[in-house]
C-alpha cells in the first residue's frame, strides 16, 4: 500500500516531483561526472594537478546536494501537512506515514540516479573539452568510461535521499490527525530541539576550527577555512528559519513601507512561514559562502606569496564555482517553484478580493528577493568570518581584498533564479481564470 500511495502522490504533486528529481539528478550527474574525469585523468602524470580539482568538485557537489535534497524533501513534507493529517485520521500509523515518505523519495531517487548517470557522460566530455581548450589539460585528454564513478554516484544519490527522507518523514509522522482541519499553511514549529542541537554543535565546531585556522600555517589555513565555512553553513541552515524571521523581517520592513500592499504581503509570507523561505535561502547561503571562501582564500594565499595567478588557474576556479552556482540557481528555482505551487488558491483568493495580477507578481518577486538576499547576507557573513581567519594566518591581519564584480555576479544569479522560479510557478494562478482549478 505505501508504495502504491507513494506513486499516486508523486504523480499528482508534479512540482515536488520535478524539484526532487532535478535536485537528485544534478547531484548524481555532478558526482559521476567529476568521478569520470578523475578516473580518466588517473595514471597520467601531466594531470596530477587536475585530479585534486576533480576530487574537490565531486566532494563539493556531494556536500551541496545534501542541503538541496534535504531542503526539497522537507519542503515537500511541510506542504502536505493536510494529507498527512488525513491519512492519520483514517487509520495510517505514524510508522506507515514515515515509510510512505521514504518510499516516495526513493521512487524518485531511483529514476534520478539513472538520469543523472546518463547525463554525466556528456557533462564530463564537455568539461574535458573545455579544460583542453583553455589549456588546463593536454590535448587528447578524453573521458574514458569506468564503472566505479557510476556506482559511487548512485550510492551518493540514494544515501543522500535516504537520509533526507528519514529526516523529513519524522516531520510528516508528527503531524496529528486533526491537522487536516487546519490550513495547510499552519505554522510549524520554527526551531525543534533537534535542529537547535545540530545548529549548536555545528556552531561550536566551527568556532573551534576558526581559532585553529587563524593560527595555522598558510597551506593549512586555506582548506581549514573551507571546512569552517562548511560547518557554519550547517549551523546557518539549522537556524535558517529563525535567521529568516529576523534578517528577512529587517529586509522586509523598508519594502513594506515603499510598496505597501505587495510589500506587506511579502513580509507576512516570509515571517509567518520562515521555514518555507528558509528552503529558498539556504542553498543561496551555501553557494555564496562556499564560493566566496574558495575564490578569495586562494586570492589571499596568492597575495601573501606575492604570486600572480595565470589565466589558466582562473579557469579552474571558474569551473569549480560555476558548477556549484548552476546547481544552486536550479535549486533556488526549484524551491521557489515548490513553495509557490501550493499557493494557487491563496493567490486566487487575493485576486478575487481585488489584488491585480501585477501586484501579485510584485509581492512574489519581493518575497523571493527577501529570501535570496537573506541567504546572501548570511552566506557573506560566514565567508567573511572564515576568510578573516585565513587572512590572519596568511598576512597577520584580518583584512583581505576581494573582487566585487565576481561577488555581484554570484549574488545576481541566485536572485534571478529565485524570481524566475516564483514567476514561472505562479503564472497560471496569477493570470488564469479565477474559477477553474
Amino acid at each position, binding site marked *: 500500500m505505501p508504495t502504491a500511495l507513494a506513486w499516486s*502522490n508523486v504523480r*499528482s504533486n508534479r512540482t515536488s516531483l520535478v524539484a526532487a528529481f532535478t535536485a537528485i539528478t544534478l547531484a548524481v550527474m555532478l558526482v559521476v561526472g567529476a568521478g569520470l574525469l578523475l578516473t580518466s585523468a588517473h595514471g597520467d602524470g601531466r594531470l596530477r594537478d587536475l585530479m585534486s580539482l576533480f576530487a574537490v568538485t565531486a566532494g563539493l557537489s556531494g556536500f551541496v546536494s545534501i542541503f538541496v535534497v534535504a531542503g526539497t524533501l522537507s519542503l515537500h513534507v511541510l506542504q502536505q501537512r*493536510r494529507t498527512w493529517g*488525513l491519512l492519520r*485520521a*483514517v*487509520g495510517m*500509523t505514524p510508522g506507515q506515514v514515515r515509510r510512505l515518505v521514504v518510499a516516495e523519495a526513493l521512487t524518485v531517487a531511483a529514476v534520478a540516479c539513472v538520469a543523472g548517470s546518463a547525463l554525466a557522460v556528456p557533462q564530463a566530455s564537455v568539461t574535458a573539452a573545455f579544460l583542453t581548450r583553455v589549456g588546463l589539460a593536454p590535448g587528447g585528454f578524453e573521458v574514458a568510461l569506468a564503472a566505479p564513478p557510476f556506482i559511487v554516484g548512485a550510492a551518493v544519490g540514494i544515501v543522500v535521499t535516504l537520509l533526507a527522507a528519514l529526516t523529513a518523514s519524522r516531520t510528516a509522522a508528527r503531524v496529528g490527525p486533526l491537522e487536516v*482541519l487546519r490550513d495547510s499553511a499552519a505554522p510549524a514549529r520554527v526551531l525543534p530541539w533537534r535542529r537547535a542541537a545540530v545548529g549548536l554543535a555545528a556552531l561550536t565546531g566551527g568556532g573551534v576550527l576558526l581559532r585553529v585556522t587563524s593560527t595555522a600555517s598558510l597551506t593549512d589555513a586555506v582548506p581549514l577555512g573551507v571546512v569552517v565555512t562548511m560547518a557554519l553553513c550547517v549551523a546557518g541552515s539549522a537556524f535558517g528559519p529563525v535567521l529568516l524571521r529576523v534578517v528577512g523581517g529587517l529586509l522586509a520592513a523598508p519594502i513594506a513601507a515603499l510598496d505597501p500592499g505587495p510589500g506587506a504581503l511579502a513580509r507576512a509570507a516570509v515571517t509567518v512561514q520562515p521555514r518555507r523561505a528558509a528552503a529558498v535561502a539556504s542553498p543561496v547561503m551555501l553557494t555564496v559562502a562556499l564560493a566566496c571562501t574558495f575564490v578569495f582564500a586562494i586570492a589571499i594565499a596568492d597575495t601573501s606569496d606575492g604570486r600572480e595567478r595565470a589565466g589558466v588557474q582562473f579557469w579552474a576556479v571558474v569551473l569549480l564555482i560555476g558548477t556549484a552556482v548552476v546547481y544552486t540557481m536550479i535549486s533556488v528555482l526549484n524551491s521557489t517553484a515548490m513553495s509557490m505551487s501550493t499557493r494557487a488558491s491563496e493567490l486566487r483568493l487575493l485576486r478575487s478580493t481585488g489584488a491585480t495580477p501585477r501586484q501579485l507578481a510584485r509581492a512574489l518577486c519581493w518575497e523571493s528577493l527577501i529570501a535570496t538576499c537573506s541567504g546572501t547576507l548570511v552566506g557573506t557573513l560566514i565567508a567573511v568570518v572564515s576568510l578573516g581567519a585565513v587572512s590572519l594566518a596568511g598576512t597577520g591581519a584580518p583584512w583581505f581584498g576581494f573582487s566585487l564584480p565576481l561577488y555581484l555576479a554570484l549574488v545576481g544569479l541566485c536572485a534571478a533564479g529565485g524570481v524566475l522560479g516564483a514567476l514561472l510557478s505562479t503564472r497560471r494562478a496569477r493570470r488564469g481564470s479565477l474559477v477553474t482549478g
Partner: protein
Amino acid sequence: MNADGGSAVRFDRVSRTYGGGPTGVAALREVSPQFRRGSFTAVMGPSGSGKSTLLHCGAGLDRPTSGSVWIGGADLAGMSQAQLAVLRRDRVGVVFQSFNLVPSLTAEQNVLLPARLGRRRPERTRLREIFDQVGLTGRERRRPGELSGGQQQRVAIARALLSRPEVIFADEPTGALDRSTGKEVLALLRAAVDEHGQTVVMVTHDPEAATWADRVLFLTDGRVVDELDRPTARQVTERLSRTDGQP
C-alpha cells in the same frame, strides 16, 4: 461500570482544555455521555460549545486533558498513536465537515484507503454497493478536485461506511448538502444503525436532520445540558432557542 455491555462509546468525566493558565479555553468540562450500541445520536448546540471537540475525543483524534474515553472495552488513553490509528482504520469511521479526501487519490481509492492500510481486501460487490448507495456510481475514478463539495462529502461517508465500523463519527455531514442529498446521507446513517447495528454520533445544526436520530444531546459551553429521546423537529427547535438564549 456495568453499562459497558451496552455502550459502544463511553465518556468518563472528560475535559479538554486548549492552552493553559487563566487564558485557557475549556472546550469540554467533565462530560460523561454514553452511546449505546446500535444507537443514532445527534449532538447539537451553539457554535463553540464543544461539539467537534467531543467528536474528536471520541474518535481518538484528540486526547482529553482529563477523564477517559472507552470504545467497546478499550480505554483510548492507554493507546499509542499507532494503536489509535489502527482503531480508526478498523473500528471507527470519521467524516469531517470538509477536507475529507486525499487530493491525489481517486474517489474509489479514497474509499478503500482504511481497508488497504489494514491490508484488508474488500469485495468488489461491497464497493459497488456502497458507491450505489451514496449515488456516485460512475464517478469512482474521479479525483476530489473533479467532484462537487457534496459529492466529496458522500465519498467520505462511503469511506466511513465501507468496512462497517462499530462507531461512525460525523461532523455536520449534511452541512454542505442540499435537502434531498442530505436526506439520502441521513438515510444511509440510519440504515447503518438499523440494519447493521452500528453506532452513529453526528454533530448537526439542522433540527430536521436531528429527527433522524434516536436521541439528541445538547451541549452548551462544554457541558451536556440536556437530552431528548425520539426528538421531533419542533421539540429540537424549541430546545435550541432556549440554549441559544443562554450566555
